[in-house]
């Protein structure tokens, strides 16, 4: 039996895969059947009846199974007794669908009329007005007037905050349950639900704080009416007034495609500002979802505290200066200290910025002293060999495939990857998680390996060794069972992070995991689509920083340098002991992050930043850079997809794009005329970095048709996520795709004896930082410093749930909340809501005696 069936919809024949729903089959031939409750990313429920159509199937003789024919030879069709919902009926061969007949029209009219019986019809003030499926479908299919009594409307609450981020208008809700189903089915945060029945049905939130989910913003996109709105955009603008500019999220290595909707604002002095961030469809990256961090952390671009003028220290004070003065000074001082300079970069900068930054040091100053300011995760060189192969799409992983996730909490560190791994598990993929402690992925994992503190590497080494031989009998040892499941998989993707590991340990981890991927069971798990290694980088463009050679030992394109320069740790030491004289910090705040105590014995410190950070306060020159929204550039995701983003708002003050500032410094140190466009810098990158060969701004902007078809005129089908018209990006090919990769040697790591309680810093999506602090809408959700530990450990320390504690790690003291959590393995303390701490540490934990607030009666 073939996998394809042919159906006729309004006289047009279409051949679609078996199992396709009638509504999708029609969509494929641009016949838009109106829907409200159906959404292509959710399971059909058939609740709203908007999609009613006539469906006829060929009649067969009961005895013989022969297709019955009319006199004229045409197939006899059985249209059943009435209309059927196109969103729940699966196509079958020979099916005939009619979507434009009088009964269908009548049904649509009736459904709309019913939906509007209690609708407030406040389109003029509704945020959805203008992009509202209900409005559009009413105009298209509704009656001009209602036969219902206006005074008989049920007036439910119009102003219901579901937490601080999402507002609900119960009168507008048409009870389609898309929001509830999204939260439950797609992201497994069933925190909202229906309450009551009939016309009094209303959405309620079940969580404390309300609508406690990292995904809540997506419900406002798929809600077919204006019932759900974000606190951020509420009454912010009418949709038709917005100018949409394609962008890329800068907050984690997933690199979700977004659209910045901008508009001029009188209260911003007539400037264009970002009114909202919307997902932009990229089925290879984020489909049509983004997490709430990506949606709400954009306010830093317009923050009043942004740096606007170059600052130069004169008589101990930072005073405003002209660009020429500042740049001349920087170039002069860097050259003067040529032999004792170093550069530290942040990993949120674009590829263009990072490339020119390393060019300044390598070619302009002849120094390899360049590194990321905040190194957490190693293995970029390994990823260049055995990274996720180009042409991969995590959406294709399913039964028979395997995903291994090591030392990372994807839900907190890269939410959309968590979602995609979860969905792979639901499609039947084997998911193995290996970590110190349970994470949110454990629920969906087939194998959970919780190693003891300090045993991460030995556990993974054992796993790799076990994976070498295929075992016939199912083993009771969980490690062996996991190894067995992994090695049997058709495709294998491995994620690794740095939770509880030092930088050096992550390097060994990456190599061990590469060896696992290289194990051949038939074919190795490298170099083929949907196979390979994905690093869970700490920031959005750490991958680009590796590619561009912001590394003491690698020039652009992973070319080893003959004399490696100083690593970040050595640079910090050099600053303190005076062996370094000049330091250039770009897009990073090592002082604020506790990596550098002060400016030590530096003679010259230059900081290029958006804000007056702690490091910038100590600088001799502060150069104001532009945020990602004011300029164009490219980022490379953890899947090594190079993606382009565009200029959305005008520059703040006299700030300049990072690449331009660097190009102008480079000119002053004798590297020739500066490039005058980011695209030209990228062209140079494409020449120098072999991996980027053949890419340019035009090829990165290429798009192709995607399924499901969202963002078009028919907003009712996919919601308000934007269509991708500005580029899907390009994944660069790792070495394994064209050559054989040898196994990596991994030195045995010394096992460090660990006594007592071990503390590990764990990630939280909303951890305080320079950028997120600028978005007041998220302030209530920020992760406060908290320790979590098992009951026995807590009791030993005299701690109980809801106590406050004072935790001292590496001589920094935090005041934290205490959560007793039986999920936490004994002997381990999880610390969250604080800046990154590498590896496992010990900590002094002391209970804080706080005066218990007595209820005062009012």
């Amino acid at each position, binding site marked *: 039996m073939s996998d394809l069936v042919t159906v006729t919809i309004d006289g047009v024949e279409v051949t679609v895969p078996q199992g396709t729903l009638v509504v999708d089959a029609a969509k494929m031939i641009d016949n838009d059947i109106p829907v409200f409750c159906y959404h292509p990313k959710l399971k059909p429920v058939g609740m709203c009846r908007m999609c009613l159509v006539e469906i006829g199937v060929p009649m067969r003789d009961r005895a013989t199974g022969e297709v019955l024919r009319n006199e004229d030879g045409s197939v006899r069709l059985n249209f059943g007794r009435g209309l059927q919902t196109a969103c729940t009926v699966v196509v079958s061969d020979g099916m005939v669908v009619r979507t434009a007949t009088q009964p269908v029209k009548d049904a649509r009219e009736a459904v709309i009329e019913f939906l509007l019986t209690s609708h*407030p019809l*406040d389109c*003029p*003030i509704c945020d959805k*007005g203008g992009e509202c499926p209900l409005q559009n479908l009413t105009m298209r299919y509704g009656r001009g007037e209602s036969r219902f009594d206006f005074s008989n409307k049920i*007036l439910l609450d*119009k*102003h219901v905050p579901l937490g601080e981020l999402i507002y609900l208008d119960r009168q507008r809700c048409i009870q389609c349950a898309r929001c509830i189903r999204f939260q439950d089915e797609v992201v497994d945060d069933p925190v909202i639900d229906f309450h009551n029945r009939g016309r009094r049905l209303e959405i309620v939130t079940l969580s404390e704080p309300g609508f406690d989910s990292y995904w809540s913003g997506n419900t406002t996109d798929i809600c077919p009416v204006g019932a759900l709105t974000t606190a951020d955009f*509420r*009454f*912010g*603008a*009418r949709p*038709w*007034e917005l100018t949409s500019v394609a962008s890329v999220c800068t907050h984690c290595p997933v690199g979700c495609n977004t659209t910045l909707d901008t508009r*001029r*604002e*009188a*209260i911003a002095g007539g400037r264009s500002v970002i009114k909202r961030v919307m997902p932009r469809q990229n089925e290879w990256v984020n489909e049509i979802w983004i997490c709430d961090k990506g949606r709400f952390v954009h306010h830093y671009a317009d923050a009043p505290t942004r740096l606007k003028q170059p600052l130069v220290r004169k008589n101990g004070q930072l005073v405003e200066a002209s660009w020429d003065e500042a740049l001349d000074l920087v170039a002069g001082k860097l050259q003067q200290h040529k032999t004792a300079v170093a550069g530290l970069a942040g990993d949120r900068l674009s590829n263009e910025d990072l490339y020119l930054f390393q060019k300044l040091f390598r070619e302009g100053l002849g120094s390899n002293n360049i590194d990321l300011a905040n190194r957490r995760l190693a293995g970029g060189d390994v990823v260049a060999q055995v990274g996720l192969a180009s042409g991969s799409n995590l959406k294709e992983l399913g039964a028979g495939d395997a995903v291994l996730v090591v030392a990372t909490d994807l839900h907190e560190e890269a939410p959309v990857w968590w979602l995609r791994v979860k969905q792979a598990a639901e499609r039947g993929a084997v998911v193995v998680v290996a970590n110190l402690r349970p994470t949110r992925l454990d629920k969906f994992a087939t194998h959970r390996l919780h190693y003891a503190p300090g045993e991460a590497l030995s556990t993974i080494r054992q796993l790799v060794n076990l994976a070498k031989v295929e075992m016939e009998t199912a083993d009771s040892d969980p490690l062996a069972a996991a190894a067995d499941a992994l090695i049997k998989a058709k495709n294998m993707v491995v994620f690794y992070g740095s939770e509880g590991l030092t930088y050096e340990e992550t390097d060994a981890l990456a190599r061990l995991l590469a060896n696992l991927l290289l194990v051949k069971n038939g074919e190795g798990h490298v170099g083929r689509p949907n196979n390979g290694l994905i690093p869970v980088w700490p920031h959005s463009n750490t991958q680009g920083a590796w590619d561009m050679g912001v590394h003491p030992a690698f020039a652009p394109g992973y070319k080893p340098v003959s004399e490696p320069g100083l690593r970040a740790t050595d640079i910090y030491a050099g600053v303190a002991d005076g062996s370094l004289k000049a330091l250039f910090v770009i897009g990073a705040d090592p002082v604020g992050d506790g990596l550098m105590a002060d400016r030590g014995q530096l003679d010259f410190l230059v900081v290029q930043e958006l804000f007056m950070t702690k490091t910038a306060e100590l600088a001799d020159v502060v150069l104001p850079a532009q945020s990602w929204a004011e300029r164009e550039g490219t980022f490379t995701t953890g899947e090594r997809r190079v993606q382009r983003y565009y200029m959305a708002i005008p520059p703040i003050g006299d700030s300049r794009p990072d690449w331009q500032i660097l190009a102008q410094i480079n000119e002053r140190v004798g590297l020739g005329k500066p490039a005058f466009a980011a695209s030209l810098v990228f062209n140079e990158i494409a020449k120098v970095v072999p991996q980027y060969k053949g890419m340019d701004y035009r090829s990165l902007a290429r798009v192709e048709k995607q399924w499901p078809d969202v963002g078009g005129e028919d907003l009712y089908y996919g919601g308000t996520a934007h269509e991708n018209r500005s580029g899907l990006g390009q994944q660069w090919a790792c070495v394994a795709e064209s050559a054989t990769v040898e196994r990596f040697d991994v030195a045995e790591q010394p096992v460090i004896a660990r006594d007592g309680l071990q503390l590990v810093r764990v990630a939280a999506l909303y951890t305080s930082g320079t950028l997120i602090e600028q978005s007041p809408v998220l302030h209530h959700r920020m992760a406060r410093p908290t320790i979590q530990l098992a009951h026995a450990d807590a009791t030993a320390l005299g701690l109980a749930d809801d106590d406050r504690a004072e935790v001292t790690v590496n001589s920094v003291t935090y005041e934290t909340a205490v959560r007793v959590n039986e999920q936490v393995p004994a002997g381990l303390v999880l610390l969250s809501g604080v800046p990154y701490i590498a590896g496992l540490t010990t900590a002094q934990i002391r209970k804080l005696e706080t005066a218990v607030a007595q209820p005062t009666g009012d």
Partner: protein
Amino acid sequence: MITEILKGMFTTFKHLLQPPVTIQYPEVKRPVRYRFKGRHELKRYDNGLEKCIGCALCAAACPADAIFVEAAENTDDERYSPGERYARVYEINMLRCIFCGFCEDACPTEAIVLEDNYELSFYDRASAIYTKEMLLVPVPPGGQPTPQKVEPGKYDRAIPEMEDPK
């Protein structure tokens, strides 16, 4: 020939005796017609609340792109208009406006009305932009200025019951 001259002079003298038609503007102003379209006004309800709900439909309808609206949310402590939304910023650029009245037609609350004032002159372009304060009519007798502090839940309808347009 004499007759012709006399005829002409007769007409002249006849008009000399008639009352003059020149209107002594600006001392004297001629009343405008019922459907005259002059400078816009933003209306208020009798209790002083603004009729404008900041929906920007006038801006959308305007063929000259003369109107700019920025909305914000009402609270019961600071209420400008009934319902949830009001115009925090409302500007009309009178140099752009072609006085077509489309904004009036688009307005769901009859908040914007083109009134009688045709005396628009400016020394510079910036002063041709009329802000909300300049467009809003004075608070009617017995009404309160906006923002008002009102009892919670009183104005939950965005577009309150209104008399039919006349």
